[in-house]
């Protein structure tokens, strides 16, 4: 082993060029005569060559890493980074303007819609609810002042801000009308054909079916038993119908027929009825020839002739069933006997008159 160490040192010295010329000649001599020694030298040289290459590469890499540290890669990146496609560049450039333009457009659209009352209307701008807009406020104020200076009356004499029609559900003071008639009301009064005014309170409202149930607050109020009944089944197209309502301060009779099974824009809750109706007719009863209530007038199509709409009577019944009977002061029992059948139209109307009310909303 001692010899091996010597040989290794000798080769190392040879590779480093530390041998003197005499030693070198001796070394070369030994290589040429001793093949084992020569192999040893070649192996050694090979290994040291790999080692040196390894060392060079390690050094070069560390030098490059040091240089790399000096480079501001982020700045370079910005300089050489791939340019985004045209659409992204346009977007980056114009997105603020686009956002502003979109906002302005939206404000314009919604502002216009809002100011023209698009959102205030229940169903559509093509649909007009038939409640009466009473705008002679001046007269009403005068009347009010006059009333105060005179004597207290049973209710305001003036025709409220809005008006509609309603009709009795039962003899003990329950009245049905349209939800849109009394929507947003401070107080609601009803006036009968004789001109008597009663204060009512809202018992139940159903915005989906556009139905509201009112009750006359006067505990003494009572009617004779109702002459009409409510039709449970659907009416056929062509069924003759009539209505009585308050498009003005007196009851007005209108006659027509059921013209379609569905209401405005396919609304299955209502019929389309060909009947003359005007603002104020909303909430009025729609009766067939036998004196059954088949519906309740609630609107008409604005730009079409003879297209009025009436909520089907079975939805009135549905609404009544939805009222909790326990919450009512008086029992709400629907009439089951029809006394109008067989009478002439004039007689039917005479019997109906006391059960139809003008609804006044303040």
């Amino acid at each position: 082993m001692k010899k091996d160490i010597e040989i290794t040192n000798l080769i190392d010295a040879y590779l480093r060029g530390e041998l003197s010329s005499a030693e070198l000649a001796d070394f070369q001599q030994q290589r040429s005569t001793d093949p084992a020694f020569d192999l040893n030298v070649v192996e050694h040289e090979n290994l040291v060559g790999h080692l040196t290459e390894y060392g060079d590469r390690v050094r070069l890499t560390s030098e490059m890493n040091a240089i790399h540290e000096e480079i501001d890669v982020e700045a370079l990146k910005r300089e050489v980074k791939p340019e985004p496609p045209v659409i992204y560049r346009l977007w980056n450039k114009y997105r603020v303007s686009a956002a502003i333009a979109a906002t302005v457009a939206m404000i314009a659209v919604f502002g216009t819609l809002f100011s023209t009352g698009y959102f205030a209307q229940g169903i559509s701008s093509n649909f007009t609810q038939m409640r009466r807009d009473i705008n002679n406020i001046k007269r009403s104020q005068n009347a009010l002042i006059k009333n105060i200076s005179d004597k207290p009356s049973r209710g305001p004499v003036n025709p409220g801000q809005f008006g509609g029609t309603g009709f009795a559900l039962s003899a003990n003071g329950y009245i049905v009308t349209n939800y849109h008639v009394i929507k947003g009301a401070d107080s609601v009064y009803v006036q009968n054909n004789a001109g008597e005014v009663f204060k009512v309170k809202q018992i139940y409202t159903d915005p989906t079916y556009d139905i509201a149930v009112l009750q006359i607050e006067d505990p003494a109020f009572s009617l004779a038993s109702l002459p009409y009944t409510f039709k449970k089944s659907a009416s056929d197209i062509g069924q003759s119908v009539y209505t009585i309502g308050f498009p003005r301060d007196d009851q007005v009779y209108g006659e027509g027929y059921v013209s379609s099974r569905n209401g405005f824009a396919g609304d299955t809750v209502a019929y389309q009825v060909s009947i003359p109706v005007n603002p104020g007719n909303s909430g009025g009863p729609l009766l067939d020839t036998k004196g059954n209530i088949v519906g309740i007038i609630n609107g008409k199509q604005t730009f079409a002739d003879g297209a009025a709409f009436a909520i089907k009577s079975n939805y009135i019944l549905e609404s009544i069933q939805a009222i909790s009977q326990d919450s009512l002061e008086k029992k709400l029992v629907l009439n089951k006997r029809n006394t109008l059948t067989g009478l002439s139209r004039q007689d039917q109307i005479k019997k109906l008159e006391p059960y139809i009310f003008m609804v006044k909303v303040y």
Partner: protein
Amino acid sequence: MRKEIKSSVPADNEIILGILNDSKDILNRLYKTYFPMVLQLVLNNNGNEDDAKDIFQESVIVLYNKVKSGNFELNSKLKTFLYSVCRRLWLKRLNAQSRNVRNIEDFTDIIPVEDDMEKHEEKDRQFTKMEHALKQLGEPCKTIIEDYYLQNRSMQEICEKFGYTNADNAKTQKYKCLQRLKKIFFQS
């Protein structure tokens, strides 16, 4: 779309000479001149700056090996050579990651570098092998070998550094270490 990276470019033969002389200044200028080009290549082809660094350093190693092996013929611009090597390396790496490579977006001319790549791959294998062998060798052998063969220190210095009582002990130690390294390196 395409930007040419402009900077004061050192002359090609100046660089070759600098490489042969192990000039740090030339390495510095070489690095700073050509790194942006490679960064651009890699960033534009699904890579990040770290990929660019690896690829570029590898290409410089290829260049150094080629120049130092003595058979370097400058039959293209140095820039083109480096770019072609980097492109080649990057394609290979993309393939290894099995990313979708249809076409790489080029920024300058390219030359075929297959021969150089083959040589480089062989050298790369040897390098990794040596790295593993040295790691397996353990201390203090690794340091003794590195000090003697890589740093070219004398046995006297090593003897003092490791606190051997005389140079013969150090020489024995070095002999044993070298024998073990030889065994690990050639057997693996």
